């Protein structure tokens, strides 16, 4: 009994588990490759796979085998010129296998394979975990989204679907008036022929005319549109998980921040954004730039327009608090904030910033990251000193100094290192 079976419909990823096992085992190699790639790539280009080379000696599976040397008598096909007793110089490698090995020994020194985009990103974000993420996720499914679901015959007038209603009306008119129209046409034709032979006053003409009038009335009585023609767009509620986050990007654009500093800031924000996209389905970005006054702007303006003037950081913090209050209720949103600055601030303003953060912002925010674009050993400004106090007061506040773009990734990792104690 023979069976012919189509197995193509079965899953093709039978080896997925083994592939994962392989990746787990060679994580150190893969991570090295990933980190190399991160250093080379631009941040907008981060989300794609990467080719990885692993030295094949690291992944070999050893077995007992016979090494080179000793005596061996090996068979080869395709003899052309040799006769028994000919001697041949030993090939350079001194290999017992003779020519065949040196000819075809392509010798794979490296085991190469490609990481998929997901695997790449997974490694990229490994060990990083945003703390306090659980909080607002409890509010999952509390939100509903309206989605279209056909038509109904009742509803509010604002939802009338005109096309659908008119189609219905037209169909009904044809159905109801059609038979009368046909009779009317017949009667009119009959009247026409009758009038050729008889006068207007003839009885038969009068009856026909009455009949025609009656039919016309009947047709007229079929309403153009009736209540039961009307159709309403139907919408139903569908629950949506609130895996949404808002990320506030705060940046100092006072004269002391040059394009270079801004660029570092941008990279940091991009990285944070990428990271958040891993955790949340939907992320909104709010860009707030400030010098002495703060202003909400779009991304282009945020990164590329220049302003001059002094620096009052608290203005940005106040604006942030306002926006949260107005647009992002904490019950629905996970709120993150990242601030980039060169550390300059109006000295009297720094304590105000500290208080604002501790009392107003941090209770509402999941995480607040502050990066100061400055040399590590540069003298701490007033803002840095005050922020130190904040970071001691709250585990949700982290701060870090960085000076060049290649420091971003280590700093980023440090900022978001898994909080083991939690």
């Amino acid at each position, binding site marked *: *009994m*023979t069976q012919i079976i189509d*197995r193509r419909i079965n899953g093709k990823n039978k*080896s997925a588990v083994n592939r*994962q096992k392989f990746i787990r085992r060679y994580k150190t190699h893969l991570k090295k490759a990933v980190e190399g790639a991160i250093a080379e790539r631009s941040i907008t280009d981060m989300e794609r796979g990467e080719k990885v080379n692993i030295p094949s000696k690291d992944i070999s599976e050893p077995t007992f085998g016979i090494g080179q040397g000793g*005596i061996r008598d090996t*068979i*080869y096909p395709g003899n052309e010129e040799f006769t028994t007793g000919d001697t041949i110089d030993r090939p350079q490698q001194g290999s017992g296998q003779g020519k065949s090995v040196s000819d075809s020994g392509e010798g794979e020194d490296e085991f190469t394979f490609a990481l998929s985009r997901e695997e790449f990103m997974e490694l990229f974000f490994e060990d990083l975990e945003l703390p306090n993420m659980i909080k607002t996720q409890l509010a999952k499914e509390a939100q509903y989204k309206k989605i279209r679901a056909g038509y109904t015959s009742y509803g509010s007038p604002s939802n009338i679907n005109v096309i659908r209603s008119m189609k219905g009306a037209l169909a009904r008119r044809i159905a109801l008036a059609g038979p009368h129209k046909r009779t009317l046409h017949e009667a009119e034709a009959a009247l026409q022929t009758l009038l050729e032979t008889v006068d207007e006053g003839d009885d038969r003409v009068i009856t026909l005319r009455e009949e025609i009038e009656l039919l016309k009335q009947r047709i007229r009585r079929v309403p153009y549109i009736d209540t039961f023609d009307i159709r309403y767009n139907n919408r139903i509620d569908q629950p949506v998980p609130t895996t949404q986050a808002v990320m506030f990007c705060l940046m100092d654009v006072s004269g002391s921040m040059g394009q270079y500093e801004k660029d570092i800031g941008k990279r940091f924000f991009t990285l944070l954004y990428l990271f958040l996209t891993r955790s949340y389905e939907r992320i909104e970005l709010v860009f707030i730039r400030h010098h002495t006054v703060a202003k909400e702007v779009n991304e282009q303006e945020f990164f590329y327009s220049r302003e001059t003037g002094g620096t009052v950081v608290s203005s940005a913090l106040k604006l942030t608090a306002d926006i949260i209050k107005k647009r992002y209720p904490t019950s629905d949103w996970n709120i993150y904030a990242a601030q980039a600055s060169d550390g300059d601030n109006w000295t009297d303003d720094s304590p105000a910033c500290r208080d604002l953060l501790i009392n107003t912002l941090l209770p509402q925010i999941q995480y607040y990251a502050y990066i100061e674009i400055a040399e590590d050993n540069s003298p701490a400004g007033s803002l840095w000193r005050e922020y130190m106090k904040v970071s001691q007061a709250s585990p949700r506040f982290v701060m870090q100094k960085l000076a060049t773009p290649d420091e971003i990734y280590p700093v980023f990792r440090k900022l978001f290192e898994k909080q083991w104690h939690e």
Partner: protein
Amino acid sequence: MNSSTEAVTKKRLSETSEWTFELLDTYHREIARIAADFGLDTYPNQIEVISAEQMMDAYSTVGMPVGYHHWSFGKQFLSVEQRYKRGFMGLAYEIVINSNPCIAYLMEENSMTMQALVIAHASYGHNSFFKNNYLFKTWTNADSIIDYLLFARNYVTKCEERYGVAEVEMLLDSCHALMNYGVDRYKRPKKVSLDNEEKRQEEREEYLQSQVNDLWRTLPTDQQKSKSETEDPIWPSEPQENILYFIEKNSPILENWQREIVRIVRKIAQYFYPQRQTQVMNEGWATFWHYTIINRLYDEGLVTDGFMLEFLQSHTSVIYQPPFNSRYYSGLNPYTLGLNIYQDLKRMCESPTDEDREWFPDIAGGDWFTVIDFAMRNFKDESFISQYLSPKVIRDMKLFTILDDDQRNSLEVSAIHNERGYKHIRNALSEQYNLGSREPNMQVYKINRRGDRSMTLRYDAHQQRPLNQETNDVLKHLVRLWGFSVRIESLNEGGQYELTHECNSSV
């Protein structure tokens, strides 16, 4: 049964190279009829059509339809995938599983011609070989293999959950390193079904553990200490060639579940053991039959000329043997060698020459099917070549041997395809396919029971060939399984054993 004269009037099975399931069925029926006509004895067939990705999956688990999970299969898969995507390699047209029913995988990309070739090759060629070759009959159990593999996978998964993925992985790594030393060569295994297997596994677990404890209870007591270590009789009393079996039964450090996993690897190694020993015979047999059957299809007028051209094109590329000095040369092509021997046997029966009568008096002029059927059933590569490699095949393939002695400065051509060389070549080729000379002959020689519990292996170096570079790495794995130091003593030129490798348990 249809005779071929009737068949000439038959309609062609198909005109285009597209295949459909109906056509597969039609072709299969004709092929089955012809195979039965010749007298091929096979398991029932199960033909499965799969995609290229699935073929790569099948590749990476070395043809096991259900395998336990291990990173090495992932590595295999990645390298196959990489090479395939870059176009460095094509995929095999077919994979066939030695099971009952015999499962053959066909790739969906194949044309109708290729599907027919593959059905004839795998479902009738390999299938009949699996069913009738003595090694397969002795060492593998086609009825229960799928059940056993399923049991193995579930068991390994269960262990991963219970004892940790890393722990299981390390154990499997070590077992894989010794996989080739996990086969019995001279005992016959019992047949077991899945249900029994699970039941027996539990019993075995308890029994084994009690045995092991007994073994190590012979550790020295105070009175015995007076005896010197050298007086301890050599144990095991005979050298053990099945190292994994020895580990499974005697390792002092393994837990029950670990012993079971050792056993699983050993069992699977045993299942593949005959395949490693019958490559030339098996592939040659399958190739012989696809060639014979498809030609019969053509003779009966069932297939078109185009079909036949495509068939011949693939057939010749399968059996192409690049000469030794070609850059494509990578050893003897087992398909070619096997096919040549079978075809020459057929030729000897049908039109024997004087040479044949001299070399093969029993065969020349006999019934060809009886002759090759006997050859297929009763040999392995080594003995098959030594029995049947004829002077004509040696001449056709222009075989020659090169003697490489590392004590001498140059290589020597020791024999070519002439009257004086035939026997030498035949012996050398047979020796080349002797598994024993391809793999080091390594046996558990002694366990130091009174002292450091170390294990001593003995390597009987054949023709003074040394062990390879990986030996020390393998020893590390063996130490992991044994728990104490392991050494290797190799036979040197003077016929003495000397210590060549050692790995201490602290490493």
